[in-house]
Each structure stands twice: as C-alpha cells, then as structure tokens.
C-alpha cells in the first residue's frame, strides 16, 4: 500500500497543479483568515494584533457601544425593508414583463441598468437628488408647496430610508431579472390548466406560481441577504454614516475600528458577529438546498 502512494499523488498531476490557487484560496484565505479573525477577536489587540487573550471582553464592550447598536438597528431596518420591498417589487415587475408585452427588452434594459453602476455612483446620485437645497424637496417648494419636507439624509430618524431608496433603485432590477427567469421556467400548461378551470390570474400567481417558484425565491433571498450584510459603499458615499452616527452599519463599524480607530480587537469582534449573522442565514439555506440529496 505504501509503495503505491507516490504514484497516486502524482496521478492527474496537472489538474492538481491547476487547482493550487483554489486550494490556497479556500484553505488559507477563507478558512485560515476566518479562523484567524475569530481567534484574535478574543484578544486585546489595539494598533497591531497581539495574542493576549482577554476572553469575551471585546464582545462585552461591543454590545455596550451605542454605535454598534445603532448600526445593527440600521442594518435590520434596511435589511427587512430591502428584502420585502425588492422581492415584492421585483416579482411584480417580472410578472408585468412576462405578459408578452412589446418592448420587453427596452423595459428590462432600463430596469436593470442601475445594477451595473457601483454603490459609490448610486450613493452620490441619490445624495444629489435628496439634497434639500437643490434636489426634490426644493423643486416641490418652488412649485408652491413650501411646507413639503423631504430631507431624509439630514434627518437622523429617517436617514436609513434615504439609503433604502437608493438601494432599491440599484438592486430591484436584479431581483426582477431572477424572478423573470423563474417565471419563464414555469410550464405554460399550468397557465392553460388554470385558465380552463376559470381561476383568475392573480390567484394563479399567488396559489400556484409562487409556490412553484420557491427555489428561485430562496436563492434570490440568499443573494439579497448576502448583499445586505455587505452594505458599506453605499453608506460611505451617500451619508458617510451621518448625520452623526445615525446611518452607521456593521461593515462600516468594522472598517472604522480596524483601519481608523486603531482598535483591531473591536473590529475583529464586530466582524465575527457579522459572520455569525451570515451563518444563521446560510446554514439553513444550505441545509434546505443540499440537505439529504447529494449535490453535483
């Protein structure tokens, strides 16, 4: 047995060499990097990482920092609104586009183009549109409705909804596209059968088509959710986390503590919490998708 080993190792050697970057990325960066960050989140690292373990101190401090709680609350509000609204809007738009309409390609192109733009560009455009002195508010003031008040970017209570408008503008096209692909994947005979039975089309959508599209919905949800957790660029460009810390999000909290606050331990603890949140979403999904059957 021992004598055959070297031969087995060298069999298929080119493929193994070709896979080295993947193996290194998977093991060193993804597994190794994650393990490193999690480990060092239990240390008192400040400017440089130090292996001085302090137990759960960083987490205790994290959960006692108002800024973290604000950023978590923001992410929660943004996340729930984004998920619900982009799914509903994306599905409705896809259903409208699926009615064998003319100019389908034109509409689809228009609805999807913001997705090609970066969050920085998105954030800056909406910062300009929502500018209270020159933007939408001022236009409406000039039309005579002077009591109209719409300056979400300068109002700490609703600033996250200002970001949400921009996020929806950028991301709904993607959901629409995924949903449209899902709708096209549904057997046309189902529609015929429903029509023969005299079921109105909205009922067909809700009780037949949507349940059939469950896998598409789940995949879309996972994509939206993993985008939400990463929410960073948009905030930096549109509000800079302001006014004050009112639109802070976890990703920005991590960045600021790691690279500006010189408080690495806090950054590691916060990013570990982000990882935990993602695992809570991804593990049940992976279980649903791949659990039981072996995936190819």
């Amino acid at each position, binding site marked *: 047995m021992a004598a055959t080993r070297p031969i087995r190792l060298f069999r*298929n050697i*080119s*493929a*193994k060499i*070709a*896979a080295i*970057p*993947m*193996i290194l990325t998977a*093991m060193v*960066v993804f597994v*190794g*990097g*994650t393990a*490193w*960050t*999690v480990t*060092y989140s239990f240390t008192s690292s400040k400017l440089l990482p130090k292996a001085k373990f302090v137990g759960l101190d960083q987490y205790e401090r994290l959960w006692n920092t108002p800024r973290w709680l604000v950023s978590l609350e923001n992410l929660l509000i943004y996340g729930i609104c984004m998920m619900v609204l982009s799914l509903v809007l994306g599905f409705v*738009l896809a259903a409208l*586009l699926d*009615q064998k*309409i003319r100019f389908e*390609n034109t*509409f689809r192109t*228009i*609805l999807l*183009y913001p997705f*090609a733009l*970066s*969050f*920085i*560009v998105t954030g*800056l*455009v*909406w*910062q*300009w*549109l929502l500018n209270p002195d*020159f*933007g939408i508010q*001022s*236009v409406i003031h000039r039309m005579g409705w002077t009591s109209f008040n719409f300056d979400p970017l300068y109002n700490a209570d609703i600033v996250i909804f200002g970001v949400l408008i921009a996020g929806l503008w950028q991301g709904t096209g993607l959901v629409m*596209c*995924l949903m449209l692909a899902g709708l096209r994947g549904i057997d046309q005979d189902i529609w015929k059968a429903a029509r023969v039975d005299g079921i109105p089309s909205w009922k067909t959508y809700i009780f037949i088509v949507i349940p059939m599209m469950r896998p598409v919905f789940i*995949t*879309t949800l996972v*994509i939206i959710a993993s985008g939400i957790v990463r929410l*960073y*660029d948009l905030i*930096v*460009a549109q509000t800079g986390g302001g006014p004050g810390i009112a639109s802070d999000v976890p*990703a920005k909290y*991590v960045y600021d503590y*790691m690279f500006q606050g010189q408080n690495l331990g806090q950054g590691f603890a*916060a*990013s*570990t919490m*982000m990882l935990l949140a*993602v695992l809570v979403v991804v593990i049940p999904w992976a279980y649903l*998708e791949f659990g039981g059957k072996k995936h190819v």
Partner: protein
Amino acid sequence: MSDTALLSSAPPVSGDAMTGPRGPKPRRRFSRRNIFIYGTLIVVALYYLLPLYVMIVTSLKGMPEIRLGNIFAPPVEITFEPWVKAWAEACTGLNCDGLSRGFWNSVRITVPSVLASIAIASVNGYALANWRFKGADAFFTILIFGAFIPYQVMLYPIVILLREMGLYGSLTGLIMVHSIFGMPILTLLFRNYFTSLPEELFKAARVDGAGFWQIYFQIMLPMSLPIFVVAMILQVTGIWNDFLFGVVYTKPDLYPMTVQLNNIVNSVQGVKEYNVNMAATLLTGLVPLVIYFVSGKLFVRGIAAGAVKG
C-alpha cells in the same frame, strides 16, 4: 403611449390586430389590462431613468444655473467645463490632477485582475469538470461557501499576508485580492459550463493522447468563447465598481476611480461644485454603463450565472 387613455373602452381598431383565426384569442390592444401594464412599466421606467437624466443635465450646467434653477430642468446653456474640470483639475487632498489619475489606476487594476482571475478560474473549472481528483469537490465546496463570508472578516488577515509578501499598498497586492475574491463565482461559472459540454469530446481527445493542457487550449478554449465573454463582463464591472478593497489595500496615489470619486465629492473643504461632482460621477459610471448597454443579453447571463446554485 400617452393617448391610450382615450381609447380605453373602444373596440379594437378594425383590421389592425386581426391576422386570421390562428393563435390565441386576439386581445384588445387598449384593454384596461394593457393600459395598467404599460402605464405601470412606463412610470417605473421613468423613475429608473430619472437619476441618470439628472446626472447628465446637472453635469452640463454652470454653477449659477444650478443655484437658481430646478434640478430637473434641462440646461439653458450647455457647458462642458464641469467635465473637463472633473477629468483634469478636481482635487483630492493635495493632488489636483482630477479623476484621470483614478481612471488610469482603475485601468491598471482592472485589466490584469480580470485576466488573472479568468485564467485561474477557467483552468480550475476545467480541472474540476474533467479531471476530478480526490478531495477536489471538498475544496470547491469550501470555496463556494467562502463567497458568503463577509469581506470584513478576511480584510485584516489579508493585510498581514500581503505585508509578509511585501505587496501591501501596491497594485499587485490589490490585483491578487481581486483574483482571490473573483474565484468562487468564476470557478462555479466555468465548472458548470465545462460540465455541460459533451463528454465524448473530452474522451476522444484523451484516446488520441492529448494531455491536460493540450485539451484545454485546443478543444475547451475555442469552444467556450461565450462563457469567457460573460466572465469578462462580470469581472470588469465588478472590479471597476469595487470600493472596499481599493481603499483598504492601496495607497492614496494608487486609489482606483471609485475611491477617488468619493474623496472628490465628499471632501469637506472648498465650495461644493455640484456640476463637477455629477460629471465625475458620470465619468466613473461610464465604463460599466457602456459595457452594460453594449453587451445586453450577455450581461444578464452573467447575472443569472451569479444566481445559479452550486
């Protein structure tokens, strides 16, 4: 489409939709249903186009006109000065050579990153599809799950790795980071594509004595141009639009365009020149927008590829 309301309840225009008894029951063109569908879509489309329109209009106005006028109004006097200023004169910190610096940095980052990540991922996907070896699938699964880990978790370990290699703050370092984070999705894309090719092709080549690289270069590569284009679109837009890696892994004079744009627009000192800001924003968005409008269906395919499950 604006006159549809007038005809809402009118019978179909005679001889217009009637092409004979074939096909489904002919629909009335201006039924209430159609008005609802087209009306909604047009309103939504206008909402989606509005920011692009405002960007263009604002970037062509002079500052006095912006201060006095309405952001939706078309420019009274078209000026290209904001564009020139955004490209060549806008300041970030002490540098006043405009966005052009960021543009060229982004080009120098994007081109090698796209080539490297596609080269690595395509060979990798090919190995996974046709030359499976023990353990390959385990690594692949880890790679795919790695795509879900928030970047923030891996930011600092990569700083350490790059510092150890002496690449921290250099373009090479950033190019490596882009290749690493492009790997999960691209490998998945290529693996699925190569798996879908007929296996007989591969077997025939094997029987004829072709090896790993020979099959890759002479058979697989020529057959998979479309998927390479899809991967390219995906990567060019993704890397061009990146902000986080650019700001973390490079130095100020190597900042990519997105980072520089943000610094120009959100700088606190000086008078805000909204027209220059919008011109700069448009300039940064131009590359992905052109790619998007030119590539059309392939772009959608790239997105759909991002959505396929592993």
